[in-house]
């Protein structure tokens, strides 16, 4: 039963990905990307990764769609088609990379295999120690905030730095006020000289 759900969700993901590539209307592409994120979130839920699904639904389907639409309102909503001719070299590179990646998956452990190396590196240690040392029922929170506190600290500073970067580029509150004050002063100066 669960295999059928997986198959249906993955098929939808593939269909939507192809549709996004084929579309030239960016507005429709943004909407389809939102649906893509929502489907990924459902897939994560089916795979019992609820915290990841939560993030994907909130960020991928929610906020990033809105930010994309806000960006689209500043530009044209049709993709310019500069590369109308087929590019054989590009196609070859993509096919070779894809084939190499698929070839590499043959060596990977089966999905959900309890003997997979990823489940025996540090995970056992975290599962053993969470109850006694952290005492938080949600293991994901214990790993993110306590065992891996440095990583989450890094992620928070990345978000902070990204915001500072956007503020520098698009003009945060302070630059805006300073710019408006300068405009006002300039216009006053002109009035006096006249």
């Amino acid at each position, binding site marked *: 039963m669960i295999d059928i759900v997986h198959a249906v969700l993955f098929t939808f993901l593939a269909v939507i990905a192809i549709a996004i590539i084929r579309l030239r209307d960016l507005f429709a592409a943004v909407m389809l990307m939102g649906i893509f994120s929502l489907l990924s979130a459902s897939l994560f839920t089916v795979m019992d990764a*609820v*915290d990841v*699904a*939560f*993030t994907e639904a*909130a*960020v991928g389907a*929610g*906020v990033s769609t*809105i*930010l994309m639409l*806000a*960006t689209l*309102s*500043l530009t044209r909503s049709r993709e310019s088609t500069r590369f109308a001719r087929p590019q054989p070299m590009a196609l070859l590179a993509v096919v070779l990379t894809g084939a190499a990646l698929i070839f590499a998956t043959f060596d990977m452990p089966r999905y959900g295999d309890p003997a997979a190396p990823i489940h025996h590196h540090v995970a056992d240690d975290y599962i053993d120690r969470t109850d006694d*040392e*952290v*005492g*938080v*029922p*949600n293991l*994901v*929170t*214990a790993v*993110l*905030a*306590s065992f891996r*506190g*440095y990583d*989450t*600290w890094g*992620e*928070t*500073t990345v*978000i*902070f730095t*990204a*915001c*500072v970067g*956007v*503020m520098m580029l*698009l*003009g*945060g*509150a*302070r630059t*805006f006020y300073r710019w408006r004050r300068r405009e006002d002063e300039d216009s006053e100066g002109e009035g006096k000289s006249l």
Partner: protein
Amino acid sequence: MIRHVILRVLSKLLIPLIMLFALYVQFHGDYGPGGGFQAGVIFGAAIILYALMFGLEAAKRVFPPRVLEFFVALGVLLYGGVGIDAILLGGNFLEYDVLAHDPVHGQHLGILLVELGVGITVASVMASLFFLFAGRGRSDV
């Protein structure tokens, strides 16, 4: 200002609930799915919904960009402050065990504060980004 009455009334009903849900996700993250990042995004989404429905200028009066800028830094400072506090109390950076008399209580307190810092930063970053993008190319905001 958008004139769609149904959307505006519905969003008036929804925005407080979305904010309350964000707080639930924030402080219930120790017990259920969720945590600071998800809660921050949901709270940011509530602010964005307000801006979409009632206009950018009204949203900027409720959540002034300068205050949001302050909160962007405050969350990171709170996270780093917990780490520095642990050093001052004789532990390593972000070692929550020393924060309270009992190591497990210290862990609880540390995780709560750290997640709160993440939530504050993420919520204000999301709202700031939307304000910056949406306010671009307009002279009236």
